[in-house]
Structures are given as structure tokens and as C-alpha cells.
């Protein structure tokens, strides 16, 4: 059993990691522990809890910037931002239902996993809002990168490297993020009864329009029936959805324009504030796939126009799925181990798209996550480069060893 360490500040994190590097002790980095089931299961000598690195250290709404300890709870940050009518525009998803825990995730965890919700297509991913960091490398040395300003090319952008690295390079101790105003108004236009290929076409049309859409999703009929929004649940048909946000007159104008655009494809409807928010929270948080607790859940990022084709192939042995990011993001629930095959559907899912795309096993039993590649395997030259990058931060391989890949 790993022993728990709880440093009280960043200096102690550095001290602990310097010792661990020198003594070749492996360390699991833990924030709130809300996403320990994401990634390959790991066993380490110690668990280093970053819990003490907590609290918002700087928030200047008119400068659109916030700095906080890496283990500050996302809920606390969001509540603070909401008071000033601001938000993290990348719409971080909440996977507490997906992973069956009620822990409030940390800002460091969200960035380390580079998670983003439906607004990804307009506002970018977590990495695009990550301005600066302080961290301790696997060498036990404190370093920083970036800053508090949006435009910055002073030195390498190590924030990008840290985003999505799942704690395998360094322990984040403090992070600075860009924040943005909450749009004044939100509307969602629904289009009913499209099969998947037709929905992809409709979403591409909306994404290529000048209406600055902020989200595009498609729920096949069986998935739509699981929504808490009655317009969607009771539709008895597939539902394609587009969201617009902004000042009221603009939102009204664009909603009208999108209704006209999609009206040519089929019946349309409109969701306002509350219902609209519910729908997009469901889409972000994978809610429609949760009723089956044993399902193996995959996330695929693919070329949007290929989405329907990839979905059909990936579900050829059963399961269900839906689309976000204008068809570029596929969420799949495959039947649990008996029917899903020995590899949790990895070969089937990864064979469904060519080289252009990637699939992540987002939920599955630990044995499965130990056995198959949780993250998309890279071509040999990129894999070797990634291993060298890992080595440049963590030469003894002490940080979250094996969380992303066997080798790094």
C-alpha cells in the first residue's frame, strides 16, 4: 500500500520530490482524486496529496485573469467567477457521475487532463486558457512558465505540455488561467429526426455559417430519450442541437437564422435558458451514457465529416453513442466485458477511423485499463520523442509512472 504524504506548501512538494527522485521512490500525484479512474491504473510507493495548495491568489475580472493553487476546487473558482458574471469558457465537464464519486475536481486536475466541454469548438480547450504555471519537476526542482498575460511568447510554452500530461511531467503547484464574460443570453435550436449522416451535414452547415455557434451536438433517438429536457426526451426522434450565445438582439437574430437554415432539413424547436443549460450539461458530462454502469466508455476525436461513418463502424458489435463538437467528438458506450470482447472494443474502435484521430478509454475496469492502451498509441518516432520529453522533466520516472503509457 502506498503511503500518503501531505506537503503543506510548494516548497515541501519540491523537498519531497527531490528526495523521491534521489531515492528512486515512485509517487502518485493526487489533487481531489476525482479522476483516478481515468488513465492506466498505477501503483506507487507514495501518494503525494496536493490538497494544501489551495485558494485563489489573484482574480482581476477586468483583466480576465485568475491565479490559484493547483488544488483549488473548480466549484470554488466557478462560484467566484459567477459573481462577476465570468466563467472558464472552455466549459470544463464534470465527470463525477461518470466515475461515481462526489469529489469536487480541482483546477489543476482539469488542466492536467486538458478537458473541455461543448464550447471547445468556439472557445478552445483547457490548454488554450492556461496562461501560466508554477510546478515542481520529477527532478524535485521548482520551475515556472508563462505568466498572467494572454499574449506571451517569452520562452517555450510549457503550459501546453503540462495540459493533458496527467501529472507525468511535474506537480503543478499554482496555475493562472484566462477567464471570460458569461454571455448575456443563450439559445439552442433543435432539429428533429435526422439520421447520423444527415445530422453531420446539418452541423457542418451551421459550423460553417457566420452565426458564431458555440456548440453543436447530435443525439440519436435512443440517446435523446434519456434526456431530462422534455422537448428532447419526448421527441421520439433523433435530436440535433446548435447553441448560440451573446447579447440578446444578436442571439435572437442568429436563432432565427439557424431555424431558417435547419428548417429546410426537418422540424425545429427552440430551447431557452434553463433547458438549454441542462442539455449542454448532459452532453458535456456524458450523462446519456451513464444508465448502464458496466458499459465501457470511449471518447473519440475524429475529423468531423467522418463522424457518422466512424460511429457506425465502432458500434457494429453493439452499444450506443452520440456526437459533440460538430461531429468531431464521439462518445461511445460499448457493452461490458462479456459482449465487448477481451479488449473492451479497443481494436474495433481504433480500427473505425484511419490514422487521423484518437480514441481514449474513458471508463473501464482497472484490469482492462492495465491491458489496453487507454490513450491513442503514437507512431514510433513521436512515442520516442514523448519518452524523451518525459525524461527531460522526470529522469527517474517517479511521477505517475505508467499513467499514460507503459513507457512514460
Amino acid at each position: 500500500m502506498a503511503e500518503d504524504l501531505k506537503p503543506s506548501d510548494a516548497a515541501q512538494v519540491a523537498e519531497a520530490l527531490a528526495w523521491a527522485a534521489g531515492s528512486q521512490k515512485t509517487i502518485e500525484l493526487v489533487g481531489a482524486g476525482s479522476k483516478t479512474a481515468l488513465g492506466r491504473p498505477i501503483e506507487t510507493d507514495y501518494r503525494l496529496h496536493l490538497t494544501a495548495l489551495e485558494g485563489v491568489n489573484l482574480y482581476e475580472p477586468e483583466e480576465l485573469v485568475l491565479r490559484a493553487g493547483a488544488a483549488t476546487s473548480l466549484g470554488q473558482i466557478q462560484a467566484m467567477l459567477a459573481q462577476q458574471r465570468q466563467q472558464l469558457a472552455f466549459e470544463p465537464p464534470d465527470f463525477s457521475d461518470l466515475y461515481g464519486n462526489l469529489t469536487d475536481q480541482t483546477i489543476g486536475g482539469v488542466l492536467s487532463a486538458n478537458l473541455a466541454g461543448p464550447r471547445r469548438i468556439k472557445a478552445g480547450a483547457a490548454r488554450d486558457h492556461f496562461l501560466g504555471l508554477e510546478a515542481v519537476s520529477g527532478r524535485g526542482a521548482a520551475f515556472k512558465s508563462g505568466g498572467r498575460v494572454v499574449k506571451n511568447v517569452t520562452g517555450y510554452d510549457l503550459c501546453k505540455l503540462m495540459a493533458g500530461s496527467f501529472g507525468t511531467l511535474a506537480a503543478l503547484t499554482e496555475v493562472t488561467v484566462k477567464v471570460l464574460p458569461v454571455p448575456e443570453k443563450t439559445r439552442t435550436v433543435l432539429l428533429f429526426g435526422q439520421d447520423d449522416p444527415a445530422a453531420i451535414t446539418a452541423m457542418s452547415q451551421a459550423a460553417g455559417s457566420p452565426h458564431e455557434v458555440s456548440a453543436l451536438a447530435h443525439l440519436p433517438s435512443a440517446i435523446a430519450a434519456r434526456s431530462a429536457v422534455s422537448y428532447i426526451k419526448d421527441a421520439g426522434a433523433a435530436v440535433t442541437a446548435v447553441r448560440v450565445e451573446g447579447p440578446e438582439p444578436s442571439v435572437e437574430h442568429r436563432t432565427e437564422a439557424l431555424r431558417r437554415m435547419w428548417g429546410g432539413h426537418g422540424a425545429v424547436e427552440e430551447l431557452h435558458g434553463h433547458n438549454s443549460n441542462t442539455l449542454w450539461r448532459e452532453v458535456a458530462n456524458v450523462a446519456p451514457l451513464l444508465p448502464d454502469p458496466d458499459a465501457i466508455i470511449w471518447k473519440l476525436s475524429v475529423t468531423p465529416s467522418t463522424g457518422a461513418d466512424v460511429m457506425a463502424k465502432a458500434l457494429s458489435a453493439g452499444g450506443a453513442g452520440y456526437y459533440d463538437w460538430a461531429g468531431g467528438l464521439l462518445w461511445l458506450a460499448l457493452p461490458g466485458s462479456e459482449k465487448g470482447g477481451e479488449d473492451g472494443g479497443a481494436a474495433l474502435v481504433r480500427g473505425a477511423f484511419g490514422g487521423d484521430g484518437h480514441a481514449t478509454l474513458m471508463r473501464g475496469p482497472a484490469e482492462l485499463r492495465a491491458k489496453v492502451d487507454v490513450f491513442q498509441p503514437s507512431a514510433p518516432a513521436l512515442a520516442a520523442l514523448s519518452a524523451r520529453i518525459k525524461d527531460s522533466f522526470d529522469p527517474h520516472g517517479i511521477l505517475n509512472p505508467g499513467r499514460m503509457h507503459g513507457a512514460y
Partner: protein
Amino acid sequence: MLMPKPEAGILAQRSDLLTDLRAIVPGEGVIADEVALRAYESDGLSAYRQVPMAVVLPETVEQVAAIMQLCDRRRIKVVPRGAGTSLSGGALPLEDGIILGLGKFNRVLEIDYENRAVRVQPGVTNLGISQAVDGEGFYYAPDPSSQIACSIGGNVAENAGGVHCLKYGVTTNNLLGLEMVLLSGEVIRLGGKHLDSGGYDVMGLLTGSEGLLGVITEVTVRILKKPETARALLIGFPSSEQAGNCVSEVIGAGIIPGGMEMMDRAAIHASEEFCHAGYPMEAEALLIVELDGPQREVDHLIEKVGEIATTCGSTSLRISESEEERAAFWAGRKAAFPAIGRISPDYMCMDGTIPRNRLAEVLKRMSELSAHHGLRVANVFHAGDGNLHPLILFDANAGELETAEEFGADILRLCVEVGGVLTGEHGIGIEKRDLMAEVFTAEDLAQQQRVKCAFDPNGRLNPGKVFPVLHRCAELGKMVVHQGQMPFPDIPRF
């Protein structure tokens, strides 16, 4: 500016190197003639010049890979070059190095409207991408002022910005895929037409790495549908404090304009005298605020911004009623650099970024520095994102270059002191290299260099740029070992 000492062992290889290069790139693709090499002796930072050993202009990825392998084997230094418009000396040649020019990689490879993506070779100009998709009403958002000439590969290397990046992001936020060649000759493809490839974000790391990690051979960018309309306000203020306050109030009201530019009195006067855009000559600060998007939204917000400006004490306010008028508002801003060039024999453009609320203080201290150094300064400012472009006026023939450089360094130190950074969009290059220690600790810099070692273990790719001292990788890899008992009994456990 001290560059790494040329290595005699490399210089001695010149004739063999030329033979090997010609075996890879036949004909005129290898330039060795003294006169022809002069065309490559500097980039946009023309105060520094150096003739390279040779220039090679490959046409295929295979040739790039072969050149890289050759240089790796012979330990020749390689300086990648796009259009050569860098303002920080990123493409300055090395005496003991070759220039690897990507100018022949100038084709648009694929336009995919359905997925809103364009795949191009790195030598295509920034504007060339927008022009290629203009017919269908699309464009590529980042718009550095050199967009007519600068290449997309260079934009990636420098993480170029532009006037519209407050709303639409800089290069890194608009990239979907890259192909690059390492010094080992390995070709690596990153991303594609999909978003957020898993694994380490090597594409994000490459962006803004100033040609020190790999040579970019293909770029896939995201394109956007052009906004329905754009309108601008031209607002004069009696002080830069009030103008700065107006910027904060606009953003505080939840409005993110497409562009928000500020000019100080010196810049207003130089521009107005040069191109007669109708700027208010009595103003101490001028704001150009552009709103773009759906017509209804723009009309709505332009009024709100106008009201905010009035509340903030504006002394003049014009709203564009036509495309011609909007273009006229911008004409003076876009001509600011040549306008300064007209009133001064030489000028130097700085590129610090500061927290916006420190603007008035920074401008005040900058005028004190101006008096101290005895050189004039004019300011243009991407106000929305705090990116300052002070233009230092000097006369190199009067021996003022060194003073101008000292003045520039003082301005950048000031930016760092108030919580900003050395460069927002031009890059470190050689220009700001020796100021890196103002921002970073030895360990910060060592970690960045260890990352370089993962790509370039022998330090052959664009050395002498970005880092004040390039340490050997073996030296960087060493670490102090803390062994024995856990040294922190004071860390609470549970």
C-alpha cells in the same frame, strides 16, 4: 550582441558540405555564392547581419529530412527560415551554420470547407491562406501586420498574433495539425483535422519555439466564416489613464471586441501627418475599437461601447458608417510604423506585454526613461490584450543604436517588473535573449533547455537564439541526488 563562437571544425567542412548538400538538392537549390548569400544575411531585425556558410532551399520533405540528417552527422548548425520577417532575429544566420529556407514550400495542399480546415506548406503566406478561401467567405483569423509577407511556418515558430487575437486567439489557438522534421531526420505528424490529440501536446510546444526544436514542413489551420459585418469607433481621450480605463470598462461590460488598439500622442501625430486619417490631434490617447460579427450584434454593441467611452471622458468619438470609413480609421494605425520611419532615421519596435491596468504607470515611466536616454518614443498598443509596441526613435549613423538598445531593455525590464513579459508576439530571438534572466530563474531556463535536448541533443538547431547560454545536454541532465532518510519529517502524513 555576442553570438556563439564559430567552430573551426565546422567551417573547415564547407566544401564537403556543399558537395553533400548538392547531392540532396540539385541545381540552384544550394546557394554558396558570396553575393547571393547576402540576400539572407538578416531578417526583419536588420541591425544584425551575418552571412551563413550556405543556404539550401529544399522542395520536398524527403530533402529536408536528408539535409537535417546530414547536418546532424556533420554537426553543422541549422537556422530555419520562412519569409525572413522576424523582428527578433530568429532567422539571423550563423557564421558556422546553414540557412534552411522553406520558401519553395509554397503550395496550398488541401482546402476542406466541410471540416473548416486548410492544409498548407509552411512557406505559404499568412494572407495567402485567407485569400485561398476568400471566395467561399472564409478566412484565417490571426493577422500579424506583416501578413502580406510572413509565412505560416514562421507564424507557428513565433506564435504570431495580430490585431484580432483578443477575440480569435493567436496562432496556437488556431492550429489543428503540424508536420515537422527533427534533426535526426525523423518526420513527425501531429494532430490533423480533429481536435486535442491525446498524449503530450508537442504541437503546442512547437508553437512559439522559434525554430529551436524542429523544422515545420506542413501546417493545418482552422478557418472561420467571415463575420457578417465589422464596424469601428475612433475615440479620443485627454489622457492615457482614461483611455486605459475605457478598455477595462468595455471588457468589464462583457464585451470582447474583434480589435482594440491604442495610440499615444506621438504616434497619433506621426500617423496623422503621414496619412491624414482624420485623427484627433488634441488627444493624448486614441482608441480604435472594432466590433465584428452578426450585424444586429455589432450595431447593438457599438452603441454600448460609445456610451462607455463617453462615461470615461472621451473628447471625440466617431463611429464608422461605411466600409470606407472603417478602413480610414485603421489607415493611420496600420501606417504607424512607416509614419514613424518618416520622422526618424531609424526606429526600433519593442513588444512587451503588461497587465492592462498598469498601462498609465508604464507610459509615465517610459517617458521618464525617454528623457533619461535622450531618445523619443511613440506607442502603439494592442490594448485589449496588453501587448505594447513602443517605437524607439534613433539615428544609427549618429551612434545611437546602443542607447536605443539600452532604452529598449529598460522598457522590457519595466514590463516584467509590473507583472508582464518580454515579448507578446515577436519572439525572443537574439534581440531579447540576454534579458531572459529578468523573467526566468536558472532552473526555469535549465528546464526549457532540457526540453530542447529531447529534440536536439547536440544543440545544432538555431543555437544562440532564445537562451542567453546554451548548456550542453549532458550537463543539464545531471542532478543533485538527495539520498537517505526522508528529509522532511515536518511534512504531515495521514
